[in-house]
């Protein structure tokens, strides 16, 4: 599913974020990415959907070689990957329905299919009655569920979540985790960067720890391993 070999990343301002990453993630896995702030977690995650390009090394995602991917093909890569952000990244002027539908309009689906599928995922994340609301009218947890719905609406094989619970209170965070687990249960690979010790230690999954741009730990059913 995801194969990285000797990935290095140095930003234009001279900051080195990744120092030789090697990793292999299989279809259907649920992986936590943990580590101190500034360790390179975000860069690691952004590489996968090409928001950031590596300085050196090769990445394969969904059997596509990203190192040779032309920039005009990036949109098509992103359509196979659902992404959930800490700050939700919803379109503020669009309704909940329109936000989710956008991901399908991009694929030039028929309006009837779009309607059916959007209502389906809204039901899955429990927001069927909020379809006509705009993001500002929703709570943080609800907005995050909208962004999850948008991420999975086109049946991606991979869902990436960059600190999806970072802006949410504990109770809402568990709610989001339940949604993510149910998505993982359908065979979708999930890669989640997080700072939440409780979540990682309670819902046991594979844990990849990144420090100073290197993978320092990679264990199945691992622990968070940091104090706060």
């Amino acid at each position, binding site marked *: 599913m995801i194969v990285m070999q000797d990935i290095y990343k140095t930003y234009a301002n001279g900051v080195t974020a990744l120092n030789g990453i090697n990793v292999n993630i299989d279809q259907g896995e649920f992986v936590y990415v943990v580590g101190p702030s500034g360790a390179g977690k975000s860069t690691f995650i952004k590489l996968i959907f090409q*928001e950031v390009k590596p300085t050196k090394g090769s990445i394969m995602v969904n059997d596509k070689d990203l190192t040779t991917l032309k920039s005009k093909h990036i949109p098509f890569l992103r359509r196979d990957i659902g992404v959930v952000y800490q700050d939700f990244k919803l379109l503020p002027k669009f309704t909940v329905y329109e936000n989710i539908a956008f991901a399908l309009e*991009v*694929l030039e689906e028929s309006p009837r299919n779009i309607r059916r599928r959007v209502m389906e995922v809204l039901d899955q994340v429990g927001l069927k009655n909020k379809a006509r609301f705009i993001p500002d009218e929703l709570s943080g947890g609800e907005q995050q569920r909208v962004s999850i719905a948008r991420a999975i609406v086109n049946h991606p094989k991979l869902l990436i979540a960059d600190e999806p619970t970072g802006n949410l209170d504990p109770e809402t965070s568990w709610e989001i985790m339940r949604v993510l687990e149910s998505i993982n249960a359908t065979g979708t690979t999930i890669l989640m960067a997080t700072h939440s010790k409780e979540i990682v230690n309670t819902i046991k999954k594979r844990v990849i720890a990144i420090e100073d741009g290197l993978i320092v730990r990679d264990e199945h059913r691992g622990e968070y391993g940091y104090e706060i």
Partner: protein
Amino acid sequence: MKFRTFKRHFREGSKNIWRNSWMTIASIGAVTTTLLLVGAFLALMLNLNHVADNLEEDVQIKVLVDLTADDKEIEAVGEQIKDIAEVDTVDFSTKEEELRSLVDSMGEEGGAWELYEQDNPLNNAYIVKTTDPQDTMKIAGEIEKIDKVEKVNYGQDVVQNLFQFNEYARNIGLVLIFALVFTAIFLISNTIKITIMARSKEIGIMKLVGATNWFIRWPFFVEGLLLGVLGSILPIIILLTGYYYLDNSTTALDQFSFMTLLDFHPFAWQLAGLILLIGAAIGVWGSVMSVRKFLKV
């Protein structure tokens, strides 16, 4: 692109007009103000040009045929004038007709000249009109060289000054119109740019969800088009009404035959079409150029 996607872009573009209502009002305001200025100035310039054309149309060359010429020679002069390429019409006026028009032009005092009817001292004449009034001087020169032509008359000094003045006026007008349209483009595209800048985040999000650049660009294209068209409505209404009243009112200017406005139909409609076109083009250009900057995510 599938047709339903095209429909989708059109729908989204129109929705954006409502979604960003304040930005829409600002953009339409900028389009309205500048187009009103451009339109009024265009109407003024085109009418001045029309007046200049009228003046130039009145320019004609009077060719006086030598008194010694017999009928055959007179006819030959006429033929030779007609052979000049740029000549439009040639009318023959006998010396009797010349005297009549002279007497008529004198009014009351003209009676005194009627004595000359017995022994007419005037020349037979040809009245020549050129296809392009600007050629008058050149053609007059050529006619002068024809045998049996005594004199060529076209109000030499006045005509030369008139043409010179008209040329200056036209050039200055052209420069002003370009400057004004350029200012309009700059002002409108800047306003639109600000409204889109506020949405640069949105564009970034769309890209992260997998939208291609064209998928993002199309609704903006439609939005710009609509802004331009909506912004040109008010200027068109104002200019059409204003021109209609101006065209139908009598003013002191009416006593000069050459001071006529271009006819409401079709001029006012052409002006309206032109304003609509400028508005739409500037709207589209402004929004597409502004989006370009934010597409690199």
